[in-house]
């Protein structure tokens, strides 16, 4: 009797890759039982997605074999049953929707497997109702919101009723709200007895699984429970992994403090321990920022996209923002709250329709304002900037900005300066093909291509989104250095650890309105508020909160006891 999924020593190489260098998959051997919930981890290029595609026969192994319920994926006659048993959800929801209306898209898979008319309609209705899309069934798919698009992509796969669903980095492009929805679906499907394979870069998401498989350069280097992987006994950095945020803090405490016990599993236990020891390593920092020159001021800003068309949407209603010279300021809020729209106003991509925006000496309402002059003062690094590369070589890509605006110093000097600043060696990288750079190197090159204009102010829109843990760490180091050097920064992010590490002050946006501004330590420790936005507070602030709450309770209890005596 074969297991549900049995992978027998498969090796694979993409035909266009150099065979000599290394294999994409190298002698992979693994069995997966029905109903398991497995997270698959590994750096970019470790072979995770390739392995997933082997399981539903999108790719076939060069050697070895894959069996699904005993069916060999290499036999073409098995293809319909295999595709019916194994569903796959991919990274970008909009790229998984083909049909012109929602109901037809859900029916697409059913049509492919030859479902009968009545059964098909019943099934489409059932799944759309479950996904809360039934009312919208006649809508064209391009008029859906981000969250609806993502539910539709999932509905299309679930309609086929597969036994196993592979989520191939299906959460990596989503905001925290979207992630939560997908993770909840995974849990529910697992409870219904489905097999879940979740390929992810998020260690916190991996903790949700019952089993974790780590790939490195096409080989399985770990296969076990998530608690074991994150116990501190493994060199995660070697595998390009990181610790889940809370775990990381505990390990830092263990390494930095004498006597901090190994067996403390969570922040709650840590707070108890500190309370018992009557000591606590962290205080709230209160230093005021020294500078008082206002670098950015936004007043009652309003913006409507595509006014007078069916796509019209109100992005900003009433936004106020003040950023001092040399300050780094965080923007937080759910997708659609207006963060990107606000950032695009600060470097003149958008102009105020109502209200005012001033950056340095520039008044953005001034019609005569030259954007070329402005972008040399305010640089914007957009989301996933590397997809917009258009030059073949990294050096040319970085030179584009200074060349276009016409800087006075020699171009090569400027490019060298920008590359050095982000930590890319000029000689080593200037002639590298952009397509051969790693994820972290690409992001650095994108950053260099913006700072090559030597802006005084830097705007970062989701600067760490979509990076694997190693690249994340590298790019954060660069930002922290720039922040220490006194670059004024405005950072929009869903990652509160990043915001807390970089920003002194934070503004919260909600439905296009700036609802709160304050010290990062204060705003980000408001757990209830953050959770309302599906954001996770930084671990350190969580620990501080827990400790203070427990301490207050302890004091009240003691007072009570004293009064009683």
């Amino acid at each position, binding site marked *: 009797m074969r297991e549900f999924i049995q992978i027998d020593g498969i090796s694979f190489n993409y035909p266009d890759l150099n065979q000599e260098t290394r294999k994409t998959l190298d002698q992979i051997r693994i069995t997966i039982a029905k109903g398991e919930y497995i997270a698959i981890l590994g750096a970019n290029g470790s072979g995770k997605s390739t392995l997933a595609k082997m399981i*539903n026969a999108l790719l076939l192994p060069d050697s070895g074999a894959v069996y699904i319920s005993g069916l060999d994926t290499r036999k073409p006659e098995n293809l319909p049953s295999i*595709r019916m048993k194994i569903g796959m959800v991919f990274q970008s929801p*909009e790229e998984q929707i083909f049909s*012109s209306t929602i*109901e037809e898209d859900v029916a*697409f898979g*059913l049509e492919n497997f030859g479902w009968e008319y009545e059964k098909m309609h019943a099934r489409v209705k059932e799944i759309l109702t479950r996904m809360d899309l039934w009312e919208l069934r006649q809508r064209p798919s391009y008029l859906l919101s981000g969250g609806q698009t993502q539910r539709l992509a999932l509905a299309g796969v679930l309609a086929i009723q597969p036994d196993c669903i592979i989520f191939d980095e299906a959460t990596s492009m989503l905001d925290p709200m979207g992630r939560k929805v997908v993770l909840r679906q995974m849990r529910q499907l697992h409870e219904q007895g489905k097999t879940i394979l979740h390929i992810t870069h998020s260690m916190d998401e991996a903790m949700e699984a019952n089993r974790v498989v780590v790939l490195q350069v096409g080989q399985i280097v770990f296969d076990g429970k998530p608690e074991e992987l994150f116990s501190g006994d493994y060199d995660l950095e070697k595998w390009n992994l990181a610790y889940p945020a809370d775990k990381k803090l505990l390990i830092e405490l263990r390494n930095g403090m004498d006597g901090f016990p190994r067996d403390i599993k969570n922040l709650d236990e840590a707070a108890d321990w500190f309370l018992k020891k009557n000591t606590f390593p962290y205080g709230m920092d209160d230093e005021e920022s020294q500078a008082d020159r206002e670098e950015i001021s936004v007043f009652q800003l309003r913006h409507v996209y595509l006014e007078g068309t069916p796509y019209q949407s109100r992005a900003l209603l009433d936004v106020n923002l003040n950023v001092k010279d040399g300050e780094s300021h965080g923007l937080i809020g759910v997708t659609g709250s207006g963060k990107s729209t606000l950032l695009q106003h600060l470097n003149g991509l958008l102009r105020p*329709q109502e209200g005012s925006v001033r950056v340095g000496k520039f008044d953005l309402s001034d019609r005569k304002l030259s954007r070329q002059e402005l*972008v040399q003062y305010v640089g914007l690094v957009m989301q996933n900037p590397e997809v917009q590369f*258009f030059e073949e070589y990294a050096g040319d890509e970085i030179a584009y900005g200074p060349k276009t605006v016409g800087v006075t110093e020699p171009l090569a000097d400027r490019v060298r300066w920008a590359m050095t600043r982000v930590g890319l060696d000029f000689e080593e990288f200037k002639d590298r093909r952009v397509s051969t750079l790693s994820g972290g190197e690409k992001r650095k090159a994108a950053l260099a291509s913006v700072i090559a204009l030597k802006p005084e102010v830097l705007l970062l829109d989701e600067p760490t989104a979509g990076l694997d843990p190693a690249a994340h760490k590298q790019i954060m180091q660069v930002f922290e250095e720039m922040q220490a050097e006194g670059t004024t920064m405005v950072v929009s992010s869903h990652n509160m650890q990043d915001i807390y590490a970089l920003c002194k002050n934070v503004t919260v946006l909600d439905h296009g309105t700036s609802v709160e501004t304050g010290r990062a330590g204060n705003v980000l420790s408001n757990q209830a508020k953050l959770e309302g936005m599906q954001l996770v507070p930084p671990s350190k602030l969580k620990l501080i909160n827990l400790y203070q709450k427990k301490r207050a309770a302890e004091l009240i209890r003691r007072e009570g006891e004293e009064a009683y005596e």
Partner: protein
Amino acid sequence: MKKHMSEFEFMRSMPFTEFSPRNSLLQRIEPRAFLLSFFIFLISILFVADISMLVAILAVIIIGMVISQVPLRVFLRGFLSALPFILIIAAINIVFNTAVDSGTTYLKWRSIHISSADFRVAIILILRFTAMMLLISLVSSTLSTSRFIHGMERLFSPLKYLKVPVLEFIIAVEISIRFIPILTLTAERIAKAQASRGAVWGSGSGSLIARVKQVAPLLVPLFVQSLHKAEALAMAMDARGFGVIPDRTSYIRSKFTWQDGLYLAACLLLAIGIIGFA
């Protein structure tokens, strides 16, 4: 104060249809019959060269517009944006028309000869363009993309016997339509990224070479991203079982009823009547 218009709202110029379900009489017609009637009227418009007959066709289309319950502004938007071009072409026709100049001569100067026949040609041209514009808006706002595609597929399905891959072709059309908004947004994002790095965008000035140079940085990533998206899409279609079995079924079922036959016969008679009369 006049509001700043953003030069990056590419979606604004996107040719979207304003389809929505309205439960009008026209939307109950079977897609094949509806598409055939569209072709019948299109051919009539192209063949008729008589002012009164074109006015008659226009009247039929306007009746269709009323029955369709589509708001007037939908028709006007498409029509008004094309109107200047129609008028310019008509004016050129009046001045430079080299066809036989007959009737009353209004002006004769060198090779330019303006006569009443020229005006007749110009009026026919304006009527023809107007009728065509309105007919296309009527069809695109009444027939959903899915019913359009379904109708085309059924209409062309006899070609399957000639080994023409009808289904694949229709799906290609469907995906292309779906990609228009996605690629428009992608282009918009790329243009913004270039502009933040100093590219001058939207000025529309400069020599041809300068403008080509400006567009190149936009086209390269747009092309690369389109290929990536196409690959991702193909992968997702495969994963959902596209093409694994030969007998694919269809979610949409349409039945050609006697009412549809009657409708089609009426359209045909109307067209023959108009053309024959002319």
